[in-house]
């Protein structure tokens, strides 16, 4: 577990410099203090040895920058909130990690430089976060700039570079995204005690984001970033969430907890903890592509084809020679860049990363490609139209005496062959994130369908054998859903781990049930004489 925890914290100076001027600022400060205590505990429990920050308040335009001054010290004054006081600081920066981080970013195609200059103006957000989370410099740290032009792909690649360097150094890091949720500030002074969100739509989105984060669904929030940035005053278009999710593995397998949420000068200031968990909460918002390497500037400002020259003329008109070959959406620079992006295949995936990366663009699968069979008609056999076709020449169920023996049943859906909760790997073998609870539930639904077709039901199940491809990851989720259906049935059960199943699924169940016309009580008492 190279990243033992992640935090989202706000970067305005009020919780540091003036927590007691407002109950809202005090609440955020208390959240910081709680996070600091947990970070200290993570050092003991998990051997955390590094803080890696990304701050939306450190703006860059030439790629990204990583702080690498081993003894960064100055007295900072916030350009807006100078009246709150000065912020003297001295930070223990992990220069070796910063250098490795920048090198990893460069290896992934990014422009990135470590910076180590006396008097470099470390941003307010970084200062607030480090002083409140790591006041005694117990952990070495570094911080990353936020490129004002960076799109999602560039920011994801940056986060992956941070992770590369963590892995390569054998570090156990805590990742911190310094960002507000909504970032709209008051444009006129307010009484601190009456501080409130500057915008109702911001407040609505903040609530929604916090609900999702409290469920541990970090990647879902990252996937929603464009929508939120369009509809509310998101901080730097929510780039920090792209970065944080990439550092932490781009999935929803966390335990999330909102430690504080309150307005700070109109902005949505939240302290949120995300700790890796065994159970995923499902993938509800996954519709964005992934990217592993940065291939250059998208030139998105031109590619939209909407830019006009002076007087509304097409570009080139002012020179008296309109560019006849250029039409809307066909700007030469953009076309070159897009070609470049599309023509260059992704680099080979490093073997050590394969287990935790989502599939690259275009390869994600949620269905099986294994050949299927029509179930054969046999004596005493049952084939259910509502159950998925088998992967071999066998029936769904067969009755022998009073018992129904079901073939192994997975979560695939009849008709579509899709896999609820997602396939565990892409067609090219690349592992994918998936939801074991959704798969287990679909399995049991299929079993219920077969039992119904055979005249029985789940309450008559006598014995279950379960096959899991990843016991460590999936047992808890599988077990929880199993209990929803079978807690009162009393079936015997055996759960085993297997190396693989014939289709890209994580769970399969094998069931023996009593036939529908069997008197279960008499059977149990040995008084049953047969149907």
């Amino acid at each position, binding site marked *: 577990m190279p990243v033992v925890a992640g935090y989202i914290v706000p970067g305005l100076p009020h919780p540091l410099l003036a927590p007691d001027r407002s109950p809202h600022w005090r609440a955020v400060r208390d959240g910081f203090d709680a996070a600091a205590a947990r970070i200290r505990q993570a050092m003991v429990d998990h051997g955390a040895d590094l803080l890696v920050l990304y701050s939306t308040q450190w703006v860059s*335009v030439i790629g990204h920058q990583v702080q690498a001054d081993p003894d960064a010290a100055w007295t900072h004054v916030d350009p*807006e909130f*100078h009246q709150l006081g000065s912020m003297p600081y001295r930070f223990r920066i992990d220069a070796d990690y910063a250098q490795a981080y920048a090198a990893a970013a460069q290896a992934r195609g990014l422009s990135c430089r470590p910076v180590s*200059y006396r008097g*470099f103006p470390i941003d307010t957000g970084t200062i607030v976060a480090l002083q409140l989370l790591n006041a005694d410099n117990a952990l070495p740290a570094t911080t990353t700039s936020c490129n004002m032009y960076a799109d999602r792909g560039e920011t994801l690649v940056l986060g992956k570079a941070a992770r590369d360097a963590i892995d390569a150094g054998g570090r156990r890091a805590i990742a911190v995204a310094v960002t507000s949720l909504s970032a709209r500030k008051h*444009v*006129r002074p307010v009484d601190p005690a009456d501080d409130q969100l500057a915008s109702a739509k911001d407040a609505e989105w903040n609530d929604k984001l916090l609900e999702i984060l409290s469920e541990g669904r970090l990647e879902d929030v990252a996937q929603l970033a464009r929508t939120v940035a369009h509809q509310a005053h998101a901080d730097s278009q929510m780039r920090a969430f792209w970065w944080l999710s990439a550092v932490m593995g781009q999935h929803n397998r966390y335990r999330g907890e909102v430690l504080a949420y309150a307005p700070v000068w109109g902005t949505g200031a939240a302290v949120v903890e995300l700790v890796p968990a065994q159970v995923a909460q499902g993938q509800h918002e996954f519709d964005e592509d992934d990217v592993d390497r940065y291939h250059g500037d998208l030139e998105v400002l031109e590619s939209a084809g909407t830019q006009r020259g*002076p007087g509304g003329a097409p570009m080139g008109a*002012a020179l008296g020679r309109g560019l006849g070959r250029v039409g809307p959406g066909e700007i030469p620079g953009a076309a070159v860049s897009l070609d470049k992006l599309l023509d260059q295949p992704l680099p080979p995936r490093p073997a050590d990363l394969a287990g935790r990366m989502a599939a690259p663009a275009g390869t994600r699968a949620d269905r099986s490609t294994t050949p299927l069979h029509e179930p054969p008609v046999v004596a005493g056999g049952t084939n259910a139209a509502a159950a998925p076709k088998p992967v071999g020449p066998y029936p769904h169920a067969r009755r022998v005496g009073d018992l129904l023996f079901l073939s192994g049943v997975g979560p695939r859906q009849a008709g579509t062959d899709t896999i609820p909760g997602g396939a565990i790997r892409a067609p090219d073998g690349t592992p994918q994130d998936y939801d074991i609870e959704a798969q287990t539930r679909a399995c049991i639904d299929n079993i219920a369908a077969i039992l119904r077709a055979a005249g029985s039901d789940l309450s008559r199940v006598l014995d279950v054998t379960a096959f899991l491809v990843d016991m460590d990851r999936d047992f808890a989720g599988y077990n929880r859903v199993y209990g929803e259906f079978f807690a009162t049935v009393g079936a015997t059960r055996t759960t085993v781990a297997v190396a693989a199943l014939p289709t890209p699924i994580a769970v399969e169940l094998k069931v023996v049930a009593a036939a529908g016309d069997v008197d279960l009580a008499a059977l149990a008492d040995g008084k049953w004489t047969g149907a």
Partner: protein
Amino acid sequence: MGSTSDAGTGRIVAGFLAPHPPHLVYAENPPQNEPRATGGWETLRAGYAAVRERLAGLDFDVIVVHSPHWKTVTGHHLLGVPRFQGRSVDPIFPNLFRYDYNLKVDVELARAIADQGRAAGLHMELMENPDFRVDYGTITSCHLAHPDWDVPIVAISSNRAYFYFSNEVGEAEMLGLGAATRRAIEATGRRAVLLASNSLSHRHFTVEPAVPEDPSFERPYSLNQYEWDMHVVDLMRRGRCRQLLDEMPDFIEQATSECKDGSLTWLLGALGVPDYPATVHAYGTVIGTGNAVVEWTPPVGSA
């Protein structure tokens, strides 16, 4: 200087569009700046040389500068401490700009501008924390225009509240701030030089050459930006600043113009929206952004 001026007889003696690429300071190797260069961006530097020559012949006692790199949202802020000394390191180009500054502030004029702004309904604040680090935009524009630092300055922040609203709202706010600045200068008897520290088109390249002053790298980011810049410079040259203001919101949107930060609009407001021709000392690009060094010299008696 300052309080010795004759109250009620003050005026703006000249106003300049004076952009702040730190590359220009880097290129000339002043003693205050730590990195060393072998030259670069000669056209723009020649433009600033012309500005320095012009200022050498003018009688002025304060420089008022509006900088996009002192960003505020809650109102307009002004330096309110008599002297600042420190090191300015550009957070974006720290490899080029690490400058030791020592400057004086005309606090009396700053207060007067704040008062005039408040009277016009603006929210104004004085920055009175002595630990404050002056932004690199202010430092760069002031150094390039008048590197002797023997005249006090007034530095005004760039208010971003209109980012929540529209470019039109921002323009109205900045014209009001400009008018307030002019009234304060007149009321305090200052002979002021104004510097609007913004570039024109402002989409940067996101990579830089190994040698920052490599001239083969430098060009406008796009034809679109170049055309807009030429159009805007032409309007200035022909004294058509009212038209420029009318087109400013579109210019900001279409050319990603740093004029969004308000410095040029503030300057034009302070100058009473000039209808006389400006002198364009230079135009050039820095990391793809368009920069013009432009002078307006108000006729004596004009406001």
